[in-house]
């Protein structure tokens, strides 16, 4: 099926070349990082994880976006999602590739990366995160590819795919839970030391992931004749709306615990993020932007009239994505490390080089996604199933 990715119009090829150029440019910066070390980043002794790990954390959410389609389709036989199942699975592949990419660029000695496998350490959550992420990648590659291939051959998918598909649904929850456990079990990091962190990760993933997926699908719809169907879009938007409500609710639960308990260490990170601390207010405008965008997105998604307005939807989803990205791709990481164990504030901001390397990974994900979606769309076109009528 890969040959489908080799045939395309000038638009397709210019996009591919554009992505390759970005990847090339980012890679030269990454080579510089390999030469100089992580000193080219804005990280420090106090904020020892930064933009890379934050993007990894955010993209784990995107990886699970597919499950919000696959689960209703397989568990509840919700047939309207049939046309989008493959899109969800392929999005998961691209997202996990980006997650792994962000971990690799964050490692200080990548030449020793295999030590994780040579010296397996079950007491480390990072070991389990490696297992669940690679496992999820493998499951989605096998299930997605096999289903598409069978569809192309106009045969029923082999029987062994079904249990794997069910496994991948449950597995999707594990990638969030385990990634949240990376943070939630650390003494002295009060912003993360919360039993609800895994639940927050799931809620945030199930709104932001499908929102990004829908936005990408809208682009695909514009570029090709692909039409996922109004019913499918409507249901997914409803799922996004519920998940966002839960996401905001969970965050407010954290705020209550931190401030009603009045334990200084528990509120300090919130204070730093939302009002500033010791004269440091770098993240305050960002966090309030996230609050405002979250509120506006909810206001535009909760009333059914606005939610099903196809012209408004891309905007509502975009600001929802920005709000969740600021919360999880920026605030969660920096807030966790600030204040440091001495109660002091060390500021962190990604450097240009750090952003270039990050853009390389994002471009890599876009490349993987483009190729996979090209194949899926071409096959759907051959089968005459490009549009879902409803």
């Amino acid at each position, binding site marked *: 099926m890969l040959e489908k990715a080799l045939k395309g119009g000038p638009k397709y090829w210019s996009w591919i070349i554009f992505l390759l150029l970005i990847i090339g440019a980012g890679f030269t910066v990454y080579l510089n990082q390999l030469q100089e070390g992580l000193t080219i980043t804005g990280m420090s002794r106090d904020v020892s994880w930064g933009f890379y790990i934050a993007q990894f954390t955010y993209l784990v959410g995107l990886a699970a976006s597919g499950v919000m389609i696959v689960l209703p389709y397989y568990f509840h036989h919700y047939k309207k999602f049939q046309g989008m199942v493959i899109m969800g699975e392929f999005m998961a592949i691209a997202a996990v590739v980006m997650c792994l990419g962000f971990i690799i660029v964050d*490692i200080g000695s990548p030449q020793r990366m295999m030590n994780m496998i040579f010296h397996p350490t079950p007491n480390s959550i990072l070991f389990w995160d490696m297992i669940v992420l690679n496992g999820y990648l493998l499951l989605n590659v096998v299930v997605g590819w096999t289903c598409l291939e069978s569809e192309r051959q106009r045969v029923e998918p082999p029987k062994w795919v079904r249990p794997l598909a069910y496994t991948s649904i449950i597995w999707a929850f594990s990638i969030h839970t385990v990634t949240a456990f990376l943070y939630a079990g650390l003494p002295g990091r009060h912003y993360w030391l919360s039993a609800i962190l895994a639940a927050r990760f799931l809620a945030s993933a199930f709104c932001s992931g499908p929102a990004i997926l829908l936005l990408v699908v809208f682009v695909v719809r514009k570029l090709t004749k692909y039409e996922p169907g109004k019913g499918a879009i409507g249901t997914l938007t409803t799922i996004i709306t519920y998940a966002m409500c839960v996401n905001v609710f969970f965050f407010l639960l954290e705020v209550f615990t931190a401030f009603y308990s009045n334990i200084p260490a528990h509120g300090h990170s919130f204070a730093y993020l939302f009002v500033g601390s010791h004269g440091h207010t770098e993240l305050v405008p960002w966090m309030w932007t996230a609050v405002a965008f979250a509120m506006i997105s909810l206001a535009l998604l909760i009333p059914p009239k606005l939610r099903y307005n196809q012209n408004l939807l891309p905007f509502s989803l975009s600001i929802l994505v920005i709000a969740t990205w600021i919360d999880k791709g920026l605030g969660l990481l920096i807030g966790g490390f600030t204040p440091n164990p001495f109660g002091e504030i060390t500021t962190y901001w990604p450097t240009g080089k750090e952003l270039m390397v990050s853009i390389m990974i994002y471009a890599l994900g876009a490349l993987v996604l483009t190729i996979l979606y090209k194949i899926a769309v071409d096959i759907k076109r051959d089968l005459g199933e490009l549009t879902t009528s409803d």
Partner: protein
Amino acid sequence: MKQSRRNFLKFAGLSAAGLCLAPSVTALASEGGHGKAHEVVNANSLHAKRWAMVIDTRKLNTEEEINALAEVCHHIHNVPTIPTKQNVKWLWEATYAEAFPNQEDNYPSEDVEKRKFPLLCNHCESPSCVRVCPTKATFKRPDGIVAMDYHRCIGCRYCMAACPYGSRSFNFMSPRKYLDMDKINMKFPTRMRGVVEKCNFCVERLAVGEMPACVEKSNGAMTFGDLKDPNSNVRKALRENFTIRRNPAAGTEPGVYYII
């Protein structure tokens, strides 16, 4: 042409013979040792069931005194002095509020408020850095010292996120850039970029019968010994003085005690 072919065949034959012989030669060379290294233990090496440190902050509490200790420690361990926030620290000084952030007093005694406290790795009984390390690069020795294998560390910095004492440093850049390579201690390795490091309770000195460098330099303000031995000097110091440990709420059971 003929000549060169004959030469080639000769060479090939000899090489083949060499390859056949090679394993037996290696076998001969290793005879006696059977491929296993002898365990070399210094006769004077110091042992304990659980190493611990007691710091008398009544005697040791000024910036100059602590910086002098840090200087010795950093010199013998080739710790670079990096003037940015990507610095490396094994031993350093802090105020009471920084050292014991959850035990801050609203009306502290003037004496304690003025004091500086030496901070270092606490060599915890239940170290969270060891719990999270994905490669066992950081591990707890049977004698309680939390040690690092710099050659196994992949630089994921998970241990830095996990340590509730901020005791770990990462080599964001090559530390050799900030070391005077003519003055380094040749008995201790320098590190490479991309690995985490920290205080090691001077395991290399204990192995040859010496006390940790800071303890030796502290003029008796620091006591180092076996916590499990009721007659040890640290137990005596703990018996006779009121001590506190940093962030007991983290549940890591630090091995460094402070007499206030």
